[in-house]
């Protein structure tokens, strides 16, 4: 279910403060954040974030198309390395 319109989009207050502080100067250094649930607002365009994915932070340069999405949508939390190839595993000594 979506969020009530009455409340408006969820923007992490701390993060919003950091973004506005940065926009005043020409500072372009990435902002490290854990606020994956934060909605990307138009003020975030052009800002670089380091978004936590549960382990490390992934880099994201916000573009206009990303407005309205959440930061977390751009930092995948799962990593799929492919299924094991049975033949290869069998060849290796000590393989399962």
């Amino acid at each position: 279910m979506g969020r009530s319109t009455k409340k408006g989009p969820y923007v992490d207050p701390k993060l919003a403060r950091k973004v506005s502080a940065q926009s005043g100067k020409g500072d372009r250094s990435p902002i490290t954040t854990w606020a994956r649930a934060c909605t990307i607002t138009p003020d975030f365009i052009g800002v670089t974030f380091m978004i936590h994915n549960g382990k490390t932070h992934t880099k994201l340069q916000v573009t206009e198309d990303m407005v309205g999405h959440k930061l977390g949508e751009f930092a995948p939390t799962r990593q799929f390395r492919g299924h094991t190839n049975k033949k290869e595993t069998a060849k290796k000594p000590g393989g399962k």
Partner: protein
Amino acid sequence: MPRVLGVDIPANKRLEVSLTYLYGVGRSTASMLCSRLAVDPGLKARDLSEEKVTELTALLQEELIVEGALRRQIATSIGRLRDIGCYRGMRHRRGLPVRGQRTRTNARTRKGPRKTVAGKKSVKGMK
């Protein structure tokens, strides 16, 4: 057979049904169109008068997005998701379900026919 918007030729069915042969028109839109045109929804499509057909075409073009335009709109919004590298776009790119469905079993509509892996235990065996 009346032609509505070029190629689309709804058959000799009730208007309410035959309009749904247009991409982007379902039963509720079809009955809305019927009432807007002041036509009996049970009327066979072949009995639709010329003026009504023109009126219908105008209505479809002005107020609704159907057929090619709708298809294009859908394709561009999916393309946008793909380009921005968000989770939903990634699911589209990989041909997996987008809305959080399980993929351990099922999800065959998105994944296509089963690709059997030799030596892999059956789903029952995995549990």
